[in-house]
């Protein structure tokens, strides 16, 4: 199994979730994160001062999937999250050694 972790633009979350469910992914975990990268941040103005905000709000998605599904998943995310503009985000893939469903104790792919 693999864990596919993607960092995307916040407003793309719903589209990405739909893309994933449509290819049979049954669950995912979402985290609000802040991203730093090529996409430059903005400045907040406060009376005299300007504050450079270099971290931008992003959404991190983690999906555990069966190894043979990985490419489909990457495709789905890329397709849904892409705007073509800088800051669209990244997809990272790790190896997942084991998975357990707490409720049932099922393990491996059965747990997903």
């Amino acid at each position, binding site marked *: 199994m693999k864990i596919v972790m993607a960092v995307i633009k916040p407003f793309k979350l719903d589209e990405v979730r739909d893309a994933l469910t449509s290819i049979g992914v049954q669950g995912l975990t979402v985290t609000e994160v802040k991203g730093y990268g090529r996409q430059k941040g903005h400045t907040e103005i406060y*009376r005299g001062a300007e*504050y450079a905000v270099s971290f931008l709000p992003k959404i991190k998605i983690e999906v555990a999937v069966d190894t043979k599904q990985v490419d489909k998943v990457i495709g789905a995310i890329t397709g849904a999250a892409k705007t073509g503009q800088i800051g669209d985000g990244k997809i990272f893939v790790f190896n997942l050694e084991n998975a357990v469903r707490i409720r049932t104790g099922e393990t491996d792919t059965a747990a997903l």
Partner: protein
Amino acid sequence: MTLKKSSRAGLFALAFGILMCLFLSVAHDVAYAQAPAAAPAAAPATPPAPPPACASDPDPKKAVLEKCTPNSGDTAWMLTSVALVLMMTIPGLGLFYAGMVRKKNVGDTVMTSFAVTCLVTIIYAVITYSLAFTPGSPFIGGTSRAFLQGILSDISTGIGTPNGLAVTIPESVYLCFQMTFAIITPALIAGAFAERMKFSAMLWFIGLWAILVYAPIAHWVWGSDGFMSNGNSDAWFKVLDFAGGTVVHINAGVAGLMCAICLGKRKDMGPPHNMVLTFIGASLLWVGWFGFNAGSAVTAGMQAGMAMTVTQIATAVAAFSWMLVEWAVRGKPTVIGICSGAVAGLVAITPASGFVGPAGAMAIGVAAGVLCYWGVTGLKRMIGVDDALDCFGVHAVGGIVGALLTGVFAIEQYGGTAGLMEGNPAQMINQVQGIVIVFVYDAIVSLILLKIIDAVIGLRVSDEVEREGLDLALHGEVVQ
């Protein structure tokens, strides 16, 4: 986009500017052109009885025995004004400041407003009221009302206020009203020392300042025998300060500057964490300020109504001007900006509110919006001091602008004193003298107090506390 925005802002500014000029020309002329004819009728129409004014009582000494015959309408309005002005400090000012600090210091910020309210109430009842508002010397009042002694029995006897400042309301109401002024003034200083001052040091400083700085200055300007009091026939020179531009705002602003200097810069800074809190605060300040300015008429009559009118106009104009300048200069109109502009306008109209008309209010509004914006940008950079929430840039600058323009736009037929525009340059001199004396005295005494406290218990929290946030470190609380 920024460009388009600013040009759009420019457009506004233009329309706006023209409007204002029209206003000034039309309204102002009319305002006093028609007045002279009416001179005689003036007095009966409104007995101009702002806190300072004391026409009804040339000799303060004698007044001690004067009987107070309360008017229920005036009393109703003054009771209301007490509630309104208290609301300015808690929750108004507390929220206005809380929105501008980082989230980790929001609790300490609101608690400062609340604790100052409690502490000053006690000190005021013990001594400040007596020192400020009972007759004594030109420099300081007497102790006849220390611990509010005599208030209660005078009520029972039906004997009223010990001086002629407010003859149509019970002294108990007058002292509550003045108490709310004594409360908000030191609370304003918090804007300067926010996010890094020890809570204990803050309490000591505010407590001493309320006695050693606020009391005498209030007496000078408003006391029936203060040496610059408009209500004192023997005053060395008469300063016009209807509701506290000098006593409250310049006073707080200068003390704030001293705090910022002594405390030094914050370790880390960040943008305001919640402009909604600032919006609530600014709004309640605006609403409460009606009690502050219109309440300073101490009667529910024409002067109160006019004070309310000019307050509303100056505030709106100042907020709008600040917004437009910011929009043009930075490309974006901000919530913090328009709220700051409103406060700047409220500050500047404060001393003028019983002496000028709609046109003067408009001019004061524009000046306040533009100059206070400069106060928190250009001037602030010049001074190079970390006045965290711009206590000096808004309150001292706004207070000075207001004090000077009061001398310019005061209308004799209305408030009893002519200003520069009515050909009385002398008043300008008085206003300047008043500003300078208050500025210097306040600066020196505040500085001494701060140095002493710093030596004894230290003014500033440790770096670690500052980094962790005052809420958790000093108060053991965090906003979730």
